[in-house]
């Protein structure tokens, strides 16, 4: 090896290490962007409603720590007493107070009861307005502060009997990370959610079974059976993939009205038992299977039907898994057609996508329930995808792109 090549190699290796790190960084960054909303969803599904409206927002679910006082569970707050954060309980509410500031540092506000403040008679200017100076007694010290405005505070007391005052709304609660698992059962108890879940499973199972069956048969015919106009029919059938669903939406809807299928669960299944893309996928795969296998079977007296199911199908599990997964995702997540075909009043024929959308409107006060619903709707496709990932990612486009 020449010196030049060696140097090139070394340079290349150095560059490639840096490059590798760079690649991981980019990949990781994008992965984080993709995954964060789902992490947020999963964590928020375990929150209490109050926690979801909190500002600043946090990812992890938290609930206030409580202390049992006289048989009641009282939330604990964390307030500074003589500079040290102490755990306190709220003992009194609605105390007339004032917001006091030092005119020199107007950002730092102190909300303190008016009862503990005596006017000194002095005045100061604050944001262009004249305000009064009070002598405010905090603990054992008194400071002269200007009164910015009135407010209302609550009285807090620690276990040691020390007292302090703060605005109740903004008093930091002592919180622990804690998951509210009952969100899931609560969501399922809502009308139509549980039914939507079982409906979706039913509809998806039927559609996947139907698509697999028709696509395997059709794909085999287009790949292996010779009949007139086969290629022309195939190309036309394939061309139908390009037809956007919305063009067919309105007349298909009317056809369903004529069949009286509208607003019944079947309307989500029967028109979708066949799929041009699925047939195409299976055909491409079948074409790749060597034809000699057929010939030996033919000699043994096998019909097309037996050849298909005995020979071709067992060889095609990757393609079938791919097609099955795609059909599953398509059927599980389809939104526009169920939206149009099932009336909103018909709770019993909901599928998860519409039930979720309904939940999004009805449960606006409890976003945690919405998130719990999304988790339920999303966990099945994700689990299936993770299981089937091995098969189809290689297959998904190798047959489609050519």
């Amino acid at each position, binding site marked *: 090896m020449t010196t030049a090549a060696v140097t090139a190699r070394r340079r290349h290796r150095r560059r490639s290490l840096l490059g590798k790190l760079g690649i991981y960084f980019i990949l990781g960054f994008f*992965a984080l962007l993709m995954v964060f909303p789902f992490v947020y969803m999963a964590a928020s599904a375990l929150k209490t409603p109050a926690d979801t409206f909190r500002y600043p927002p946090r990812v992890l679910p938290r609930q206030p720590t409580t202390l049992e006082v006289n048989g009641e569970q009282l939330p604990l707050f964390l307030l500074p007493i003589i500079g040290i954060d102490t755990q306190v309980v709220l003992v009194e509410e609605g105390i007339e107070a004032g917001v006091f500031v030092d005119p020199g540092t107007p950002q730092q506000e102190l909300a303190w009861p008016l009862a503990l403040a005596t006017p000194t008679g002095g005045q100061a200017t604050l944001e262009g307005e004249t305000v009064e100076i009070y002598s405010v007694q905090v603990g054992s010290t008194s400071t002269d502060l200007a009164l910015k405005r009135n407010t209302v505070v609550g009285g807090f007391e620690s276990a040691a009997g020390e007292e302090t005052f703060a605005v109740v709304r903004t008093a930091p609660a002592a919180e622990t990370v804690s998951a509210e698992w009952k969100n899931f059962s609560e969501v399922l108890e809502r009308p139509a959610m549980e039914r939507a879940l079982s409906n979706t499973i039913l509809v998806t199972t039927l559609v996947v079974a139907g698509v697999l069956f028709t696509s395997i048969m059709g794909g085999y015919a287009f790949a292996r059976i*010779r009949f007139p106009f086969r290629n022309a029919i195939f190309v036309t059938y394939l061309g139908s993939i390009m037809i956007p669903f919305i063009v067919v939406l*309105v007349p298909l809807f*009317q056809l369903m009205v004529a069949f009286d299928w509208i607003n019944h669960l079947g309307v989500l299944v029967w028109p979708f038992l066949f799929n041009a893309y699925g047939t195409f996928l299976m055909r491409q795969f079948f074409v790749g299977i060597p034809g000699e296998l057929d010939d030996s079977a033919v000699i043994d007296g096998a019909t097309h039907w037996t050849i298909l199911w005995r020979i071709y199908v067992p060889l095609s599990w990757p393609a079938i898994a791919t097609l099955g997964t795609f059909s599953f995702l398509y059927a599980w997540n389809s939104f526009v057609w169920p939206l149009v075909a099932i009336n909103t009043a018909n709770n019993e024929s909901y599928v998860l*996508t519409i039930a979720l959308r309904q939940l999004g409107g009805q449960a606006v006060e409890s976003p945690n329930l*919405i998130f719990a619903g999304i988790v339920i709707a999303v966990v099945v496709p*994700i689990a299936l995808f993770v299981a089937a990932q091995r098969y189809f990612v290689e297959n998904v486009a190798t047959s489609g792109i*050519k």
Partner: protein
Amino acid sequence: MVADATPVRSTGERPVWLVGLAMWQLLLGVATAVGFGMVASSTGIEIVGTPRPLTMAALGIFSILALLAATWIWRFDHRGRLIAFILNLVLAAVAGFFTLQAVNVFNGLDALSATFGDGLPFLAVIAVGWLLSGWSRGRSGRWERILLTASRGLMIVGAAALLLSVGLIPGLWTFLTRIVLPPAIIYLAITVFSIAALRLLKTSQVTKAFGSTSKQLEVMDGIAFVSPNILGFLAFLAGPLAISLFVSLTDWDGLSEASFIGLRNYIDLFADPFFHRSLLNILYFGLLAIPLSIIPALGLASALNMKLPGMRLFRALYFLPAVAGVVGVALIWKQLYNATIGYINYAILQGTELLNLLPFLDLTAPQPQWLSNPSTAMLSMVIVFVFSTIGFNTVLFVAGLQGVPPSLYEAAELDGAGIWGKFRNITVPVLAPTTVFVTITTTILALQLFSEPFILNAPQLSPNGPANATLTPVIYLYQNAFERFKQGYASAIGWVLFLIIFVITLIYFRTQREEGVLTK
């Protein structure tokens, strides 16, 4: 399948089954001819409007073909067999459909769904049994047999329990009580007879008698195998498509009679400011969303293709948004977009504060009202769309790169090519067909934007968004069809959109062909 044989014709002596077949075809031919007459003269069967000429055409054609088939069968002509096969196939499908419709099986899915929840655990039992059977294959002899029997037992027990729990017995009873009544029993009879005819037509004695070649038999097989797809396609896609074209030329409102108004809908559409706005919106959306969904995906895919450890994990993570479905993703983003307590604005705030640590910077964080402000509303849709699509496109590109031999890259490296050089000179050309595919599918998806604005704007705003900022053609179609009941107008919108998509796709193909890429 029989090799070519000399046709056996017994002159004057026709086997029973032949007579039966010919009679059946004759009966069909006559019956449909009578039906034709009844519809034509409106006696006994009353059909108004457009279905009438269509029904007459269908009945007429069927009748002629059936009579033709009858004569050909009589004459041992193979064409008769083929035609009879097709006719009986169609008849079996149609009559079968009517039978099931009459017994209300299609809508009976509702009843099944009510009890299906109870049956779910048994479905799980079946699934476990199936998994077990797959697992048993790798085991040693005795274990294999035990596991196999166990799995089979589980599946059978599970299936039985499933069927019982979802109401097999009452269903059986209802089915029986319904099927014996006319018209169900009539439809059933027709279905049974046509299926019998089909089976008969495929037997070897018929083959021998007609002297059909194996090629001719194959044709029948082919038709049988593609029939579910083709029939479904005709009924649920081609049919509605044609109807849609016709409806777009009327002023139908879905409730009352439609009247033909020619191209009036299209002319109105041309002048419709809302439609113009929707086109502008979707153009803005497309120009942003499509490149953003494709170009980063290209980069990510080539990074993933470096075959470093952990790639499979990244691939799975990128696919996640596509797997999760549009409703869930949109609802999550709705919370994130909240201008006051949403995470995005909070992240911007934190980021700006971080930047402000630098001594010379003092920025105020923009806290846009993502969904409420007309300037950012469509941008919000772009972000959600890109989020959902970019992972899917990345995976497609990765698959497209699978076929590239690594030696190509190594050779380039030795020539001194850097990462960028390799990308530009190898990755991009290799991925050209994939890029076309991805661009086309992304464009088609983008032009049909509906669900994201529909969900993100609810409940306070209409799907049009603030000041119609997120009005898209499909939303406009939906509103016209299902809220304003102007189904003729909505059909016209659909066709115009289809035309636009078609033209754009054609342009893509053309540009690719010019660059000589598609000749692969």
